[in-house]
Structures are given as structure tokens and as C-alpha cells.
């Protein structure tokens, strides 16, 4: 520890919990809750900086509340009247929880299992030290210039510190392989945070292969990365941002599994289900992968005869649900080689597709990509010979807790097995309680933002192992752009302010009032072909005009 001028407080004694201690500071040393402080203890004869997090702050000496009786009379006026000194009178008692010292061998925190002695001076943890030890960067010293490291994502800075003072760089490898969850209520900056991460992953130092499942079309501003200097590599690298609009999204019918078909069919009877699955399996055993509904029905008629009533009913259902849907095609498929490539971020814009179609295309794509990754790892021929990371906006649509989505199965598989095959998922959701718990609990890194809903808070508590009580307590009080980062990418959870995006943000709320006014003025300018208001006399014509 440096000289005494750094000291912000003095240890008073142990706290209630085994890892807690209490210290006292005067009012001018303003220490916020959540601040990281440090003290030195000898560990194996070597002085070590132990970090602790301030968890509570209470006033132990200050002006009595009776001085606040009249809102128009300031307490310091009353105090001056009574000759009570008001300068530096306040004393605060703060509670801090020991995180540990940075063990350079284990490259994580180790608990010294020893609370500081009363009288131990405490100082604010230095910026660079925190930047090194808070994220799981595996640094070999406890103070490294983390900006020089490769494969780190600058996500923001510590909330309790001045802007950009203590910058947090999380290891991309960690969250890209053990999955990521961004949980926040609407309007608190989920997509913003996700975009920040995408930007970081597309930097020349990482050149990730990214896939964004975007049901709302919120990521259309990412293309601005192209041409920005910050994203250009010395070797001529530039991120490539590909947009796949619904017209280019295709599912080859033979890629569907029988369960998927059952799910989109309209209430098939048991007999129909039996007929369909038999025929479907027969089709899948065929060499050709480019068959359509016609071939399927021909196969059914071959097995069950031309006049089978169930086959007839199935034909009608299959044609209505699959053939008339542009998404399904006997031959076309989304070419995997086109959508995943290192240094490429592909945004699948699914905003015009309905929910079922979104889930189906996701299911099929994930299955294909997972298969390719499996092949690659097992040294078989593969279309995808590099790890990939897929980000799901509205993650609860693709892995719902209710279980009624065809994509749930493959999502569960990837979250539990994907790590081995270099397939990472990122789930973004505003309803953690509506995400399948198996999927959510497998997300190793969590970025949690403001969440008020108690069921959603419970969902985080139950499924996110790293979320301690003190993290959960922070969630309702966060404001947009503030987040708690916890899990595998961190050595200890930290509150951060998400940094500003380099690209414009496309998912903000619409300027409703402005748009109303514009629309109104537009209407006023139109020729007055509209009819007079109807006040309820005679037959209303208002309804007709709505058509």
C-alpha cells in the first residue's frame, strides 16, 4: 500500500458474515456502495493486495433528524444556530465483503481467509489493478495494461468510477465458448450492449464469426462498422456485415424433422401422425435431399394407397402449412458457407416472419451448423471449420420455458455441449423467467441490466450461479446502460456502465409524439375527401371507411 494519503478509511472490526468487515470513513472520503477497496496482508510472507467490495454504507455520526423538521430551514442553519460544527462531522460505517487477493498462479481470486485487523488502512483499488483482476483475463501479474491484450472486449467502465476511468475488458473467448446471457427489461439497453459486444468481436484483433438472429430488425446499423477506421486491420481486414432479409431465408423441406412438421401442422390426428412419420422417415432415408411435398405425398400414397382418407387430409394440411409458405422450399437452403465466415457478422432479419417460421428457420439452421461443427471437431468434412457464435435477440422465443418451440431441443444441446464444438450462444431477453431454465443456467457469462419484475429476478437467482445476493440487489436500481457483469468471463461480478457504441443505435423507442404530429399534419394536407363525423344518427359509415 502506498502512502497514507491514499487511505480512505480504517478497519473497525469484523462484520456479521465470515468474509465481511466493517470500516469507518469521514464524509469527505466519499465511498460508494459497490466500490472496490484494497488492503495489504502478508500471504506466505509476501504482501498481497486483498480486494473487497463495499456492500453497505450507514451514517454513524451526523446531524440529528430533528434538524430537518422544516424543509425551508436547512439542517446546517439549525446546526449553526446551536453552534454545532457542520464541517466533516459525518462519520460513515461501511461494510465490505472480502473478494480475495489475485493469485497469479491460479489467475483468479484467492480468499486469504483472514479479515483485516482493526486499524488496517484501506485505499481505493487502483484502476489498472482492477482492470487486470476483475475480468477473467488470466494475467500473470496483478497489474497489466489490458488494452494490449488480444481477444478482449471493452464493454464499459466501472459504474462507481468516473467515466472511462476503470475500463472493463472481458475475454471474448470465455463468453463465446461458454455462452452468454444478456438479461434486461425492455428499454434498459440489451440490444445496445449486444451491439457493443458485436463491435468488439468484429475488431481486427478478434475477427469473430457471428450470427445474429434478429426478430425485430434492430441490428441494421451495424453495417456502419464497415469503413470505420476503428475496425480496420493493418493487413486490410475489415468486418463484413451481411444482412439476410426474409426473402433470402429458406428452409429446405428435407431439413425438417418429423417433430417440426408435426408442430406446424394444424392439429393432426393420431392416424395422420402415424402416416406422416412413416412417410417422412422413408423420404429421409432416400439419397436425394431435394424432395418436396409432392414427393412426400406420393410416398404416402405408395405406402397407404391413393384413397386413404388420412393421407388426403394430410395433403391438404401439408400444402397449406408448408407448400404455401415461401420459407420452405424443396431445394433452396440458406448456404452455411455464406452466413458464417471469420470476420463476418450475419444478421438474420426475421421481422416479417411469424413466430413459428422464426423458430423453424432457427431450429433448422442451428441443427445444420451444430452438425457441421461436430463434423469439423471429429475431423470429418465440414462447411464450418471455425468456431461460431450465435446471438439471439428475444431469446425466450427460441428457448421458451413453456417448451413449445421446435428450437428448444437444439438450443439445449448447444448450450450444454456446444463448448466442446466451438459453438457459442448468446441469449438476449427481457423475460428471463420465460427462458428455459436449462438453457439459461448453461450461459456461463451474464450481463444483467435493470430488472424490476420479481419473477424475472427469481429466474436469474435460480439459474445464474454467479449472481450473488449483492448482485441481485442491484438489479432494480440500475438505470439504462448500466449492467452487472458476472460469470465465467469475470473473476468477480462488477457493476459497469456500458460504453458508447461506435455505430448508431437502431433499436431505440420511436419518437411517438413527433410521429403523431407528423401524421396529423400529413392528414391535414390531404384533400378533404373524408366524410363528416358521424354522431350516431342513422347507419354508421365509419366502420366501412376503416377497411
Amino acid at each position, binding site marked *: 500500500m502506498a502512502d497514507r494519503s491514499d487511505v480512505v478509511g480504517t478497519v473497525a472490526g469484523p462484520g456479521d458474515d465470515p468474509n465481511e468487515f466493517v470500516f469507518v470513513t469521514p464524509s469527505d472520503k466519499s465511498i460508494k456502495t459497490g466500490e472496490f477497496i484494497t488492503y495489504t496482508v502478508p500471504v506466505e510472507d509476501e504482501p498481497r493486495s486483498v480486494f473487497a467490495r463495499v456492500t453497505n454504507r450507514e451514517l454513524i455520526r451526523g446531524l440529528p433528524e*430533528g434538524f430537518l423538521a*422544516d424543509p425551508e430551514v436547512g439542517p446546517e442553519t439549525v446546526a449553526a*444556530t446551536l*453552534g454545532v460544527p457542520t464541517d466533516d462531522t459525518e462519520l460513515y460505517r461501511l461494510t465490505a465483503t472480502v473478494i480475495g487477493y489475485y493469485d497469479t498462479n491460479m489467475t483468479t481470486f484467492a480468499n486469504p481467509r483472514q479479515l483485516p485487523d482493526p486499524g488496517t488502512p484501506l485505499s481505493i483499488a487502483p484502476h489498472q489493478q482492477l482492470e487486470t483482476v476483475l475480468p477473467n483475463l488470466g494475467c500473470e501479474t496483478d497489474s497489466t495494461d489490458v488494452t494490449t491484450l488480444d481477444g478482449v472486449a471493452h464493454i464499459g467502465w466501472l459504474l462507481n468510477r468516473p467515466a472511462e476511468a476503470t475500463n472493463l475488458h472481458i475475454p471474448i473467448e470465455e463468453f463465446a465458448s461458454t455462452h452468454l446471457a444478456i438479461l434486461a427489461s425492455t428499454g434498459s439497453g440489451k440490444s445496445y450492449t449486444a451491439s457493443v459486444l458485436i463491435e468488439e468481436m468484429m475488431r481486427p484483433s478478434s475477427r469473430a464469426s457471428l450470427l445474429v438472429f434478429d426478430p425485430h430488425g434492430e441490428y441494421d446499423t451495424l453495417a456502419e462498422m464497415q469503413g470505420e477506421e476503428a475496425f480496420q486491420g493493418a493487413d486490410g481486414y475489415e468486418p463484413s456485415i451481411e444482412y439476410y432479409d426474409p426473402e433470402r431465408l429458406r428452409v429446405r423441406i428435407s431439413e425438417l424433422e418429423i417433430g417440426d412438421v408435426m408442430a406446424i401442422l394444424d392439429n393432426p390426428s393420431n392416424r395422420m401422425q402415424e402416416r406422416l412419420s412413416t412417410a417422412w422417415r422413408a423420404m429421409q432415408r432416400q439419397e436425394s435431399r431435394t424432395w418436396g411435398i409432392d414427393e412426400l405425398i406420393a410416398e404416402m400414397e405408395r405406402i397407404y394407397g391413393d384413397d386413404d382418407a388420412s393421407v388426403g387430409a394430410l395433403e391438404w394440411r401439408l400444402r397449406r402449412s408448408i407448400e404455401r409458405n415461401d420459407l420452405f422450399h424443396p431445394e433452396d437452403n440458406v448456404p452455411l458457407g455464406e452466413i458464417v465466415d471469420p470476420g463476418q457478422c450475419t444478421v438474420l432479419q426475421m421481422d416479417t416472419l411469424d413466430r413459428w417460421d422464426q423458430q423453424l428457420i432457427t431450429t433448422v439452421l442451428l441443427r445444420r451448423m451444430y452438425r457441421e461443427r461436430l463434423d469439423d471437431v471429429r475431423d470429418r468434412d465440414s462447411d464450418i471449420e471455425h468456431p461460431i457464435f450465435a446471438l439471439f435477440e428475444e431469446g425466450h422465443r427460441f428457448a421458451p420455458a413453456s417448451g413449445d418451440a421446435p428450437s428448444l431441443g437444439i438450443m439445449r444441446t448447444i448450450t450444454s455441449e456446444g463448448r466442446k464444438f466451438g459453438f457459442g450462444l448468446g441469449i438476449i431477453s427481457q423475460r428471463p423467467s420465460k427462458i428455459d431454465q436449462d438453457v439459461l443456467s448453461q450461459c456461463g457469462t451474464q450481463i444483467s441490466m435493470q430488472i424490476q419484475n420479481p419473477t424475472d429476478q427469481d429466474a436469474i437467482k435460480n439459474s445464474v450461479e454467479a449472481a450473488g445476493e449483492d448482485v441481485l440487489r442491484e438489479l432494480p436500481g440500475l438505470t439504462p446502460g448500466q449492467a452487472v457483469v458476472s460469470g465465467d468471463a469475470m473473476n468477480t461480478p462488477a457493476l459497469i456502465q456500458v460504453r458508447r457504441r461506435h455505430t448508431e443505435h437502431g433499436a431505440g423507442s420511436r419518437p411517438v409524439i413527433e410521429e403523431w404530429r407528423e401524421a396529423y399534419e400529413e392528414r391535414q394536407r390531404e384533400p378533404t375527401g373524408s366524410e363528416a363525423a358521424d354522431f350516431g344518427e342513422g347507419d354508421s359509415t365509419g366502420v366501412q371507411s376503416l377497411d
Partner: protein
Amino acid sequence: MQRSTTRQQYGDEAMTDALADGDSPDLDSCVRIGSIVSSNSHLDYVAEVYKERDCDRPPELHEREFGQPVFIKKTVNGTEHAVMGVIYDTQLVDPDQGRTGPRLAQDDQAQFTPGYIEERTTLAGVALLGTAEIAEDGAIQEPTHQMPRWTLEVEDTVFHCPDQVTVSFHTVDDQIQLAYMDRLLDIAGDLGSEVIVALIDRLRGMLPEDDPNQRVLDVVEQNVQWQAREQRGMV
């Protein structure tokens, strides 16, 4: 407050009065309330209230009431100072009370109590609040509410403190101050909150209605009263 038993200086009060002549006109013309007869501590004195025989113009009842600010003049290092105080308690003394002996009164003389009758007296407890310098023109200046370091003497005259002096003693930088409050509460004991309320009432009456200090005084009074009620188990 202790009952004073020192009585021998009793007849000299008129002389003290005479000596006080020649002071600045303002403070000098103040009514004399009594003289110090003893003390309980450095800040806690006992004064015997003057009666008709003691001076030309003995204080009227309302001039020596509970909570009345008083001052005692002291010359320190050539500068004249007023040691400010307040009457925080009173006590009646009757040496006759409880005395058993022959009643001398007869039918033809209903009252016959030789000697002792004049020894009945009223003692007033005076708590010191602070000090101020007495300027040439008789006004006070540089009031301080710090503990007075000088001791009073037996027979020091206790003067009735006029209202404007009370206000100037309590005004520091245009701000009303009662910085002695904690000491006063300590000395006055059970009646501590009452004496402060009495002082505040007095100050409030002297300040203009719209003076911002009025509200400050309200808050202080509320606090003192509430604390007293709490201590007395009312709330």
C-alpha cells in the same frame, strides 16, 4: 442550586449599586436583579434577589422571571465585558420555616417575628451563557457563546438584560445563535428545555415576524421540546 447561607454581606448591597455608577449609560441603567451569593460550579451561580431594603429600585416580579437573560459586568485586562447569563431556577428561603419555639404573637399584636422576617428571601439560579465586550457607547459587541473563562465574585451585581442586548448577544453574523445550548441544558437539568423555550420565546418576540431566523428558532424549539418529552417518557 444550593441554599445560600452567606448572609453577612447582606447590608452592603447599596454600596455595590453606588459603585456601578459611571458605566456606559445603556447597560448601567439596567435594573439590578440581585447579587451573587454562591456558586455550584464554574457556570452555575446563585444570586439573591434584591428586595426593597437592598436597593432603590428592586426588580419587579416579571423582571426576574424564569428564563430572564441577565448580565454581570466584569473588567478584564482593562476591557469591560458583560458576562451573559439566564435565570434558570428560583428558590424561596425562609430560615424561620420549621423552627419550633414559642410563638410570640399575641392577640393585640398579630404579627411579632423580630429579626427573622427580613431574612426571607428569593434565590435565583443563574447559568452563564457567554460573554461580550461592552463598547464605548454602552452597546455590546463581539458576543461569544463559548464558555466564559472568568469567575464571578460573591456580591457581583446581576443586571436585568434588556431585550435589544439579548438580541445582539444572540446574533452572530446576522444569524441567530444559541451555541451554549448543550451547556445550558446540562446545568439547568430538569428545567433545561423550559429555560431554552423561554429564551426562544423571548427572542422570537423581539425579531420581526418575517425574519428567516424565526423558522430556525421553531425547529430548535421543537427539537428541544421533543427531546424533553422523550426523556420524560411522554412519547
